[in-house]
């Protein structure tokens, strides 16, 4: 019997395509994104939605988003990692030390940094699994520990300063650098500018020299994570591990392996962001990534992930990060008094998630 014979059930009403789409957690956040976009279209300076304006708010959104996608996978798998913000500072320091103090090329320094971060992920994961303590408290301890070690390490490396400089000089024109910093498609954009398709300065150089590479990473990681979640056995295990640890383990899901892997992935996402920002800025300091763990969780939750695990999506975190990035940067384009920044940020976040919710319920007929 073919599988589709089930649809001839008299107990199922017809459902619109829209309703079917809105049921997916990954698409819920689109409504909020549209709302926020419309808001800014009306209130913000026109330059916000020029090409350079869009790149401008997408860059921080992308950096946050890479963290948020890692965090959302981990959240779906039923755990938290509060140490990712500190991991950005710590991995940045490690990377700086490898590149500046040891003078290693990127081909060694980047994997080295990722391995270091991955090892921290293993430590987090093993502690959570072995002790049975909530990951909240275990990774919280590492939030403090890694942040503190970054400070101590930087002072040691620099002989007293909290900023390690000279990364740009040290990286120089390493052939790997363009994959982790600067803009991609610069040739294309120069051509587009030549043809007059995009804005240029008087000099003829395009106003936007290219697409910042973090945006490409962001999109790539979002797609990859979505594929993993929805189209691989590993994705099924992540949902299962987060949905009910015992039930999953009783059904044969290697829950501990899944969770440890997720901790590693999250830590590596943080390290990746660290590498990109450190090369970009040419320096690193002890305050990098401050409170990013928090923002990453916010973005994941806006994107529809449940804090209790077992439900969510990477695409949701993708949209959530863009919403967050847009709101944070967007206010500056409006004429609203900047003192109201936090009120505005909170208000917009609340509006966006409520709107998501209302739209979803309306469309799918839930109550």
């Amino acid at each position, binding site marked *: 019997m073919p599988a589709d014979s089930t649809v001839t059930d008299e107990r199922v009403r017809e459902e619109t395509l829209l309703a079917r789409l809105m049921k997916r957690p990954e698409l819920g956040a689109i409504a909020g994104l549209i709302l926020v976009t419309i808001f800014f279209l009306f209130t913000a300076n026109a330059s916000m939605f020029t090409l350079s304006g869009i790149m401008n708010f997408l860059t921080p959104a992308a950096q946050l988003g890479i963290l948020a996608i890692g965090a959302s996978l981990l959240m779906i798998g039923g755990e938290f990692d509060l140490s990712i913000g500190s991991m950005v500072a710590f991995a940045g320091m490690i990377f700086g030390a490898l590149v500046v103090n040891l003078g290693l090329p990127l081909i060694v320094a980047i994997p080295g940094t990722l391995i270091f971060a991955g090892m921290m992920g293993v430590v987090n994961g093993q502690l959570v699994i072995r002790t049975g303590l909530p990951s909240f408290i275990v990774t919280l301890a590492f939030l403090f520990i890694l942040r503190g070690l970054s400070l101590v390490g930087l002072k040691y490396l620099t002989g007293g300063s909290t900023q390690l400089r000279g990364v740009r000089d040290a990286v120089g024109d390493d052939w790997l650098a363009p994959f982790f910093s600067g803009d991609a498609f610069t040739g294309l954009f120069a051509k587009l500018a030549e043809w007059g398709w995009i804005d240029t*300065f008087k000099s003829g150089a395009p106003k936007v020299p290219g697409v910042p590479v973090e945006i490409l990473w962001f999109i790539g990681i979002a797609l990859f994570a979505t594929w993993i979640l929805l189209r691989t056995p590993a994705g099924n295990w992540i949902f299962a591990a987060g949905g009910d640890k015992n039930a999953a383990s009783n059904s044969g899901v290697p829950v501990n392996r899944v969770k440890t892997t997720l901790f590693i992935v999250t830590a590596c996402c943080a390290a990746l962001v660290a590498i990109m920002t450190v090369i970009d800025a040419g320096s690193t300091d002890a305050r990098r990534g401050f409170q990013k763990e928090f923002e990453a969780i916010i973005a994941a939750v806006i994107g529809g992930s449940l804090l209790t695990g077992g439900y969510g999506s990477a695409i949701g975190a993708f949209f959530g990060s863009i919403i967050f990035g847009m709101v944070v940067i967007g206010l500056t384009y409006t004429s609203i008094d900047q003192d109201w920044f936090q009120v505005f940020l909170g208000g917009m976040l609340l509006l966006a998630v409520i709107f998501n919710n209302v739209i979803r319920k309306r469309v799918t007929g839930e109550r």
Partner: protein
Amino acid sequence: TDIVVVSHGQANDPFWSVVKNGVEQAAKDTGVNVEYRSPETFDMVAMSQLIDAAVNQEPDGLVVSVPDADALGPSIKRAVAAGIPVITMNAGSDVSKSLGALLHVGQDEFTAGERAGEKLKEMGGKNGLCVNQEVGNVSLDQRCAGFAKGFGGQVKVLPTTNDPADIEAKVRAALQSDTSIDTVLALGAATAGEPSVKAVKALGEGGGKINVASFDLSPGFLKDVENGDAAFAIDQQQYLQGYLPVSFLALNAKYGLIPASNVASGPNLITKDKAAQVVDLSAKGIR
């Protein structure tokens, strides 16, 4: 001899890490035993508790910064009452005497902001942006307020998070949406100053047209000053704010010597010509 230093800035704050380095150097030079303590965020309630904790140990001297005399006053008075010599530093020059402190080393945030504002006005600025990465931290707010006073023209405060990428994007956004802004003052060199310079450069019209200045020093920002991408950095020589009070108190404990008046450690504008000399010291956490 034991001396305790309690400041309101965190150990990982680039500005305060320099103060701490000064404290440590002084301890080494004078051979006293020094503890440096600070709350984990700008938190006056927690800071007063740290002062109380220090007083309990009855040190031979206490160095405190006083950004809020109301909140910290009782604790400092308790120290004075317990017979502990107190020197205030960085913030609190106006209340130092009335709280019973021996003297004050440092410079008022407001005055420093005012000096910066005057200088930027001199450079032709009319429309300013004050990039504040920690709104609500009173000493940073005072820098902005001082800037506004000295600058005279229009000043907009831009509250940001602590993240360089956010700051760069927000400064760019501010400059894009209000093209009349010709002056940017950042309140911290590494966190806000460097991204501000990058934001201005990314607009492609940087260099001469928009002046960027910043409080405090960071090697990166000093390089920008040297290259002419930034106008100047405002240096309080905060190393002195750590070094001097400790050595004064050490001398006081040993010989009963103490200067008779306050010491002004700044402000000191680091412009293009001086930047090169300072970079190395800054990279070591001395300036």
